[in-house]
């Protein structure tokens, strides 16, 4: 086995894992607060990718800058979905909770298909092809920036949840919905904001991914599944677990290409998923439920 190649893959895996972590943290937050699984999560990320693609092509603004606009846009999308649909189904049986979000994913995916067509698009961003050499290992600058920003955004969300009033209300509503209502928290509004933040983090991850891979309408559901795997690895509802789970999955997928064709790497991730669910259903680091 080639050591340099393995090292190269390890670095790539860690860097991609940071973005996986950001995507999954949004999913974990949504589950932790509302108790629903966002089956449209990857499709929301693709929306983020397309919006930042649009801004780049039309205005020439780099995805790392338009990130803020993209996050704001997906926040509004999440806010709207929670207030129009998800708040109404919180007390439904589980079967009925899954379906509207699956349907939402279908709507988002095909809206992207309708607006942008089925082609793969990859913009040539300014830093797209730059690379650094650390010893024998090549690091794409865009991967490095994406990783750093993903960790930064994740930290900001942690800070927001710990220190601000809205963040504290979100955690209160997550712990005890009835209790939160009793002390005068407008739980529906808090839920809208929480879903919005979850959506914004996956949308931001989309903008970070844009320089790294071509965007196409049907890639969303793969990312929804990736996010599921990461979240279950880290423990449903455990935000720190989502970040670490992202790194683990990124590295595993990357290293598995040493032994398997790249198109089969997901078989490894899905097998990990099934094993974790069976033997450690609370994930590696403990979670809700």
């Amino acid at each position: 086995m080639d050591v340099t190649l393995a090292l190269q893959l390890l670095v790539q895996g860690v860097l991609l894992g940071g973005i996986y972590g950001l995507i999954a943290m949004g999913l974990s937050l949504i589950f932790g607060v509302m108790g629903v699984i966002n089956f449209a999560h990857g499709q929301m990320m693709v929306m983020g990718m397309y919006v930042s693609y649009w801004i780049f092509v039309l205005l020439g603004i780099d995805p790392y800058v338009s990130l803020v606009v993209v996050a704001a846009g997906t926040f509004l999308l999440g806010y709207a979905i929670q207030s129009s649909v998800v708040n109404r189904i919180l007390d439904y049986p589980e079967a009925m909770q899954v379906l509207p979000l699956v349907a939402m994913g279908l709507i988002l995916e095909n809206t992207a298909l309708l607006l942008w067509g089925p082609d793969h698009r990859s913009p040539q961003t300014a830093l797209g092809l730059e690379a650094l050499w650390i010893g024998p290992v090549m690091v794409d600058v865009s991967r490095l920036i994406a990783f750093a920003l993903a960790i930064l955004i994740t930290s900001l969300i942690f800070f927001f949840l710990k220190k601000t009033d809205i963040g504290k209300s979100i955690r209160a509503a997550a712990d005890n919905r009835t209790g939160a209502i009793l002390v005068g928290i407008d739980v529906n509004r808090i839920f809208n904001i929480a879903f919005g933040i979850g959506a914004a983090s996956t949308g931001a991850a989309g903008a970070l991914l844009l320089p790294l891979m071509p965007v196409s309408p049907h890639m969303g559901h793969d990312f929804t599944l990736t996010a599921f795997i990461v979240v279950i690895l880290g423990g449903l509802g455990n935000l720190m677990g989502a970040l670490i789970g992202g790194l683990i999955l990124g590295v595993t997928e990357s290293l598995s290409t040493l032994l398997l064709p790249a198109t089969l790497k997901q078989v490894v991730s899905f097998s990990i998923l099934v094993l974790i669910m069976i033997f450690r259903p609370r994930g590696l680091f403990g979670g809700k439920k």
Partner: protein
Amino acid sequence: MNRLLLFLSSILAILLVLPLFLDKYALGIFVMIFFYAYLGQSWNVLTGYTGHISLGHALYVGIGAYTTTFLAKDFGLTPWAGMVAGGVIAVIVALFLGFLGFRFGLRGVYFVIMTIAFAEIARLIVSHVEALGSFSGIFIDFSPSFWNFQFRGNIPYYYISLGLMVGSLVVVRLLEVSRLGRFMVAIREDEEAAQSLGVNTFRINMIAISISAFMTSIAGAFYANYIFYLHPNTLFGMGLSIELILRPIVGGLGTLFGPIIGSFILTPLSEISRAYFAKGGLEGLHLILYGVLTILVVLFMPKGIIVYVRRALRPVLEPGKAKQGV
């Protein structure tokens, strides 16, 4: 009950003579209506009656289609026998999935995610097996004969798919009135309570998932010999898994006629709008409409359209009660 039977037999009689008056395109739409009603009914057995949500039922469609086609192509086995072989394999896979899910207590969302994971693993593996056509899929040569399960024109497919739909209706009705069916509904309502009353819930769950998988794989065998083209992404993909659950949900989950009513409403809508929108370069729009419709149904009529159909048919089926205004 007798009035209901009379009503159903007259509908069946109409459906039996209908091909005399339809052209090929309209027949094709009816084939799809019956096909998706059958598929929805097969899924309904597991999810509607025992409450375990499968979002990976395409797995069994794929197994049925691929097994039948593989055996026919490489061993010259007639699909009539191949579909039984496919059914057996589907049951084995379902028992494995069920064992993991039910023995280790994967409930709710965890079970859903496991069904998706199994379908995706199967999709990826089939995409890499040369003998199964890998990424490019398998084209089936057209050589029409009864033995090959291939026919010229849509009339034979019409009757076969109608037979499948009616057959599934009979099976599910028999299930509904049997002890097994009652136990399944008990599990749906409260699995722990059922267990504490002495129901062997593990065994019942395993039987339910096996019946559902077997029925679903037959649909796969039919589909392969109707479309003549197999592709792992369409046959094992999440798209089909979603497609096949929409009809029972819109019609009414866990009811005998829900999947059929749902299919009679959704399938023509989707077939016609697909053709209509694709002409204007608006492919995908019919799926957006689907999504919106599903959300509206879940929000505003969670018991499905069957509730309204029952109400509308009450004067016909139970004239006595209608007069009393019950």
